């Protein structure tokens, strides 16, 4: 019975820890100050933009630093940020950016030298490549001349105007000797954007104050805080209690939990994420050697198409996503990006039709056995696929249940395999130990990166280093189109090529896009007066591809001296809970000892 005590003690400690989480930020919002607190369910991985890859970190860096260009908040087309203007050379290989005359938050001027240093650092130091290495792969050289930044490319690249690298102050960051180890935790930070980070407590919060000298004008609030929560349910409670003012990236159940609160605005708009099934169609490494243990039937495009016909996307949207998504009749680029979005029509369009799926499989020779499960045409291996999902993701669990049901109707068995995220990334991106896996991508205004994840060169190396492939795809047609779109500087023509690439993905089906999830967020209207999304009117607030929402937001002044006790309640409750639980445990233990002479001689 000792283990019961152990378990109870664990529970008690858990309660204590849970109670403590939010108490750390227990300071009273200074009266009269305009403070906005944003909730996040992931913690900052690094405050060093050369290292940060999590959305929460890159978002914070978007609020802190300037970029060469920024997507326009209305059209999402590249518009001036730190670069006032730019001119490509005739051959498209040399780009000259004119850097804006402005100041870093410590008063030093921003020059092209800063930008050149930032890019050169990433190009020359492997440790600085973690966050944005691929973005400079095509750079031949970067030099500065006064306010002019000259970038020479190895090959033409239309997406240079969507460069995702924040420009860092050279005079501060060149002193960092080991960029790979540096956490960036030096405050106040030196920035050129609307906010300056002033404090970061690991796994708890980041505090940013407004940059009064920001060249677009200071933000309309004084302070922005990012508060971390361990789980989404807690963050929703936090929003309801007024611990935070805004929370983004909600799942449908949490979003629906916000319903009915008169102070909370439920933000439900089109999102920038497509969710798709990644199919192991014969994974190979960069030297074209097979890798992994994918089911041979999935090498057949007909089987992959049959799977596509068997999926009822409308039902998935209605019942897995509670209607808060859009069924995908295109590929990996979501409809938000109207310029690049491709939608299947006519004969290419795949809809829900299990009869047709059965027909395709029958014609291709996959006969049903006595148990209703199909077998390979040239052997007796059954069509039994594994479906790899992440642990602790109820939505993926539910999706797996539905897909299992759908595929059963066409004589295919699907079993779910749950993996923690590092193992998942390894098995579905490097070692190829999967049949079908869930995946998804939050697409930037320029879809080049998401398309690049299906290139031959992104496959893992023979030595087993992942290249960031999303499908192990390696297709001649796709590669050719990719190279063409790189060179095409005319936007409509380039969009046409990108659409052809998506069509190729759709018909060849290395990935099957199932739906585009909506952007679900919530904010308190008694705290936030107004906030503008990207794109304006029907876009994204938290996690948008520009600083705009959190620059434009207007807050209500915080009431003086809010109930101090409120912030400690969690801690007190946690302590009391722990004591009670441990006490009960001890009580039962001693009582048990008295009544039954359990394990004594």
């Amino acid at each position, binding site marked *: 019975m*000792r283990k019961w005590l152990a378990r109870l003690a*664990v529970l008690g400690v858990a309660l204590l820890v849970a109670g403590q989480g939010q108490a750390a930020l227990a300071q009273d919002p200074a009266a009269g100050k305009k403070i906005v607190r944003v909730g996040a369910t992931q913690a900052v991985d690094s405050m060093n933009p050369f290292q940060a890859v999590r959305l929460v970190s890159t978002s914070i860096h978007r609020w802190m630093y300037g970029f060469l260009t920024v997507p326009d908040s209305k059209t999402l087309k590249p518009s001036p940020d730190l670069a006032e203007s730019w001119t490509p050379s005739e051959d498209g290989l040399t780009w000259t950016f004119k850097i804006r005359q402005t100041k870093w938050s410590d008063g030093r001027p921003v020059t092209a030298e800063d930008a050149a240093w930032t890019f050169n650092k990433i190009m020359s130091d492997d440790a600085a490549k973690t966050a944005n290495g691929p973005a400079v792969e095509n750079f031949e050289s970067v030099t500065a001349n006064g306010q002019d930044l000259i970038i020479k490319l190895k090959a033409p690249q239309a997406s240079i105007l969507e460069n995702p690298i924040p420009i860092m102050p050279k005079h501060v960051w060149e002193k960092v000797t080991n960029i790979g180890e540096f956490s960036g935790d030096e405050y106040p930070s030196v920035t050129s954007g609307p906010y300056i980070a002033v404090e970061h407590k690991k796994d708890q919060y980041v505090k940013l104050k407004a940059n009064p000298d920001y060249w677009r004008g200071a933000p309309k609030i004084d302070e922005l805080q990012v508060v971390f929560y361990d789980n989404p349910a807690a963050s929703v409670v936090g929003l309801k209690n007024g611990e935070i003012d805004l929370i983004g990236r909600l799942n449908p159940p949490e979003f629906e939990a916000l319903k009915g609160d008169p102070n909370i605005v439920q933000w439900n708009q089109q999102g920038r994420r497509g969710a798709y099934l990644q199919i192991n169609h014969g994974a190979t490494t960069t030297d074209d050697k097979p890798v992994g243990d994918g089911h041979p039937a999935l090498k057949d495009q007909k089987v992959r198409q049959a799977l596509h016909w068997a999926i009822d996307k409308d039902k998935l949207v209605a*019942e897995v996503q509670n209607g808060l998504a859009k069924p995908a009749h295109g590929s990996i680029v979501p409809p938000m990006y109207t310029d690049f979005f491709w939608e299947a029509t006519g004969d290419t369009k795949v809809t829900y039709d299990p009869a047709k799926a059965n027909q395709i499989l029958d014609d291709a020779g996959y006969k049903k056995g006595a148990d209703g499960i199909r077998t390979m045409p040239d052997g007796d291996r059954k069509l039994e696929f594994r479906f790899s999902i992440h*642990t602790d993701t*109820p939505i993926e669990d539910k999706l797996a249940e539905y897909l299992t049901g759908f595929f059963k109707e066409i004589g295919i068995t699907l079993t779910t*395999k749950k993996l923690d995220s590092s193992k998942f990334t390894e098995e579905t991106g490097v070692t190829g130990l999967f049949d079908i896996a869930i995946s998804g991508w939050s697409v930037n205004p320029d879809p080049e990166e998401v398309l690049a994840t299906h290139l031959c060169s992104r496959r893992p190396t023979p030595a087993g280093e992942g290249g960031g492939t999303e499908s192990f795809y390696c297709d001649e047609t796709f590669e050719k189109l990719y190279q063409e779109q790189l060179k095409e500087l005319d936007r409509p023509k380039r969009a046409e090529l990108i659409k052809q690439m998506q069509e190729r993905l759709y018909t060849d089906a290395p990935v099957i896009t199932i739906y585009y999830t909506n952007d679900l967020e919530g904010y308190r209207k008694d705290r936030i007066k107004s906030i503008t999304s990207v794109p304006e009117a029907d876009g994204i607030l938290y996690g948008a591809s520009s600083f705009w929402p959190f620059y434009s937001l207007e807050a209500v002044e915080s009431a003086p001296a809010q109930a101090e006790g409120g912030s400690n309640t969690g801690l007190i409750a946690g302590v009391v809970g722990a004591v009670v639980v441990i006490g009960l445990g001890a009580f039962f233990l001693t009582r048990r000892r008295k009544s039954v002479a*359990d*394990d004594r001689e």
Partner: protein
Amino acid sequence: MSVASARRRQALSRFWKDFGRQRTGVVGLAILVGAAVLAVIAPLFIDESVTNVVTAGGPKMAPPSLDYPFGTDESGRSILLMVWWGSRTSLLIGFLAALVSMLIGTVLGIAAGHFRGWISAVILRVTDWFLVLPSLVTALVLAAIMGGSTFTIIMAIGVTTWPSTARLIRAQTLAVEARPYIERSKALGAGHWHVTTRHVLPNVAPLLLASTTLEVASAIVTESTLAFLGVSANKTSWGTMLRGSYDWGAATAGAWWYILIPGLCIVAVVMAFTLCGRALEAVLNPRLRKAGA
């Protein structure tokens, strides 16, 4: 041999009479038999399709009604049918995990009690080591490494809960082996195998039965806990239902039936096992009898 068998029959009927006097034990046994029979005959009435989300036709999170006596879950499946079908997984894992735990515990316990010296020391140190491992965490890690299937969950629970059984059995073995007739038996040429299987095992068996009964209860709770923490056999069980109710916000949606029904099932079965186990202990353990329990 007729004398021995007659004596055994007599002992059994005395045991039944004693057990019958433990009213709570009888109640527990009745609940257990009921639950087990229901779980066994379930395939005669329903099949796995009651857990299939695609074919479930009911309204989502509907309160109890005539069509759905215990309401429905987030995909419109009947909670009643799911609890019924899920009892098979929960009970199966509970029983088998307890069995695994009992087998390991008995073998090692008897070995540690019978063989003195370094064998005993090694076994005891291993047992101690397993005893101080936080069993829930170890089971979680094991199940996560081995992947989710009924077998791995059973093994994960089984290999983390055997040490207390081993300790108990060792203690009893020591007591039994101190009796003079063991010495007599040895003098007549009995080997290790004969002594342990013919004399020790029958004497520790009653205690083993009681301890295993309690172990099943704890295994069912552990299975539910693991499922709630996200490690399950990908089959509907009471634990996965509780997990589902948490994941899909049954509490905020006010769907009490989704939380309460599987929870009560766990409580009822676990309590029944505990009642039975305690009654068995009271009947079989002479020291407790003397204490007037």
